[in-house]
């Protein structure tokens, strides 16, 4: 994902889009890369050509890269570390009697 190439800084360059592909019905759309395209319609068409040449998907989402708000890597510890000491949120924390341990 690129934050430095926005429509305002490079007028002559097609804007950047992030591409999400759903491999098949029943699965989530997953980020698979980015590409430059002049508008949303072309972005969908080009995503098909660039990222699904071998039946990798049954649906694509395209999102302008500049519209994505991401967490700051500098905040990683603050945002995600506190969960580390909450092991009781995982089912494996609980040791049950053998007879019922597969519940």
């Amino acid at each position, binding site marked *: *994902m*690129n*934050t*430095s*190439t926005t429509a305002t*800084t*490079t007028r*002559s*360059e*097609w804007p*950047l889009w992030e591409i999400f592909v759903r491999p098949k019905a029943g699965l989530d759309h997953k980020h*698979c*890369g*980015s*590409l*430059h395209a*002049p*508008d949303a319609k*072309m972005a969908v068409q080009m995503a098909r*050509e*660039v990222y699904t*040449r*071998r039946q990798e998907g049954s649906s694509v989402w395209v999102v302008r890269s500049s519209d994505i708000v*991401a967490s*700051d*890597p500098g905040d990683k510890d603050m945002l995600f570390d506190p969960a580390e000491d909450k092991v009781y949120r995982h089912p494996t924390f609980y040791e049950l009697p053998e007879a019922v341990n597969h519940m």
Partner: protein
Amino acid sequence: MYTQAMDLGPKEERKAVRSAEEAELERRFDETIDAGGFIEAKDWMPDHYRKTLVRQISQHAHSEIVGMLPEGNWVTRAPTLKRKAILLAKIQDEGGHGLYLYAAAETLGVSRDQLLDALHSGKAKYSSIFNYPTLNWADIGVIGWLVDGAAIMNQVPLTRCSYAPYARAMVRICREESFHQRQGFDALNVMMREGSAAQKAMVQDAVNRWWWPSLMMFGPPDGESVHGAQSARWGIKRISNDDLRQKFIDATADQAKVLGVSLPDPLLKWNAERGHYDFGPIDWDEFWRVVGGNGPCNRERLAARVQAWDDGAWVRDAALAHARKQATKEEAA
């Protein structure tokens, strides 16, 4: 496909670390690398790491794009509809690989226009293998078998590169590259099994011309590689040029026997003691001559690429103008 001359470029001096804060960031960066971890686009990284990656990834992207040219020569002359469809699919893949790689390079803070300018002005390098001509149909098969085969050897270790966007692009590329190598061997195999004497001679001629340049794709010997040690330290390059070259020779020497062609190296011989093939000296003067811009097709390739870009300018402009017009209409509505 197509890495090779990737660690070629001016040697840059590393800046002394400036502040205590930066030293701490560098310490954490080194720790991540040493633990075999990945660096993501927005993570802190040393300037020199960023520069090295921009150079390597963009050279790699340029190689994919320029690599379409020698093959494009043969689209209209492919012997059957089947071979034409295969060749078109392969060329489309090369274009796609170039796009994945440009996108990965752009995450490091360079724009697509800057990258393309560097290629078109001759400032950036691409794999010198594409500065050799494709003289007959067997060349297309040999490019798949040897050139793509060498590229795969080079690229598989890059799927574990420490820079995550590059590694992810390489995973996609390697998955698709295997088709390129196999279709090449298949095309040659058909010529060797079912072809006339002239067609078999054509295969041998193509192998003779592409063998040495393919070996050069792994880059200069380890002792002379400008960036090798630092790139290894950073997890950008995981296996040395010479080790990859040996691996490639060992694999292809056996494949050549199956195909029924000889490789143009009188010193090529299995060494049971080493467990590898020995091989003759590589003409590094030729390698540097081609890298330096004086190969058989350097000027032609770059000129074709620049012309394609210039000829397509009106399409890019029209698409952008259309998008702006639609956006204005939507705002007004």
